[in-house]
């Protein structure tokens, strides 16, 4: 089962992308995009995991204790911040679409603009 965590990440990515591809609502689409992006957190944390290791915080453990890889944790932190802000920006576009065109259905929006 050494592949299992990676497969979970791949599955979440595909589930999110499926939602993006078939969405009929911009807000739903943006949430699906954040689901897809959340797969990267799992992938990063899974890559850096080590058996019988604890979190890389030396406040309570003695140095030398086996810890998981901290670099992927830092990357995940960046990832989450970017995900949240991009979602906010996209949601503001959805609000504008509703205001200007009265719909947030991607198909109807496309029909209006060809």
């Amino acid at each position: 089962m050494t592949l299992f965590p990676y497969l979970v990440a791949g599955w979440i990515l595909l589930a999110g992308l499926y939602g993006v591809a078939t969405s009929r609502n911009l807000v739903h689409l943006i949430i699906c995009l954040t689901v897809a992006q959340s797969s990267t957190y799992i992938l990063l944390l899974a890559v850096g995991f080590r058996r019988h290791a604890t979190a890389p915080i030396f406040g309570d453990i003695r140095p030398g204790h086996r810890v998981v890889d901290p670099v992927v944790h830092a990357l995940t932190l960046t990832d989450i911040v970017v995900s949240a802000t991009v979602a906010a920006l996209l949601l503001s576009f959805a609000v504008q679409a509703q205001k200007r065109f009265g719909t947030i259905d991607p198909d109807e929006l496309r029909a209006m603009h060809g």
Partner: protein
Amino acid sequence: MTAPGRAVAFVAAGGAFACLFVWGASGLPPFGHYPGPYGDAVIASVTSVRHTTNVPTSIVFDYRGFDTLGEELILFIAAIGVALVFRETRDEEADGVFPIDDDEIRLQGVVLVPLLAVLGFEVIAHGPVTPGGGFQGGVILAGAALLVFLAGSWAAYRRLTPEPAVELLEAAGAGGYAVVGLVILILGGAYLENVLPLGEGGQLDSGGTIALLNWLSAIAVVGSFTLLFREFLTEMLTRRPLR
């Protein structure tokens, strides 16, 4: 293409991706046995070289401090973008009508605001020491302020977060991060090189520039998220004529 058509196309493309993904993932180190030489080098050196005990925070604000500048700018630009998108078409001031009027929500909010504010500062301040840091604590602080809106009123929230102050916080946090790097550069160091006294491990000022950049990023996060909240709430509360 219709929605069912897209679903069919997605299954084909997704299937191809799944095959490639499984093939690629099977070439990764087995789960739980990551070799990670870079991470090991950081782990081995961080407590002695940087006097910090929270390794991810040390990576974010020191070892990869330059990448975090990019992250701060993404945050900054996204918040500015939301403000631009909304303000372009806004013609009226928000009138403050909000449908939730529930005493229980108000009571819980009043209790939670001070608790969350303390928690937010605690998480930020302990960034170099224990789990947490500027980004996490900053979001908690912005959330605590947002509770003032839920528990109190839109007018109270606006008084708590005056627009010039919010914009100043956002700019000062993101700009300050870049300026710290420039000052170190002018003083003869490398960009964002850790030149401040490292302090004693386990203390709130440990890690030199790590503690400083941690606080600056907290300021940027509080400013950016409060700006986002304000813009969305103003949009929601603005009474617009029917189309």
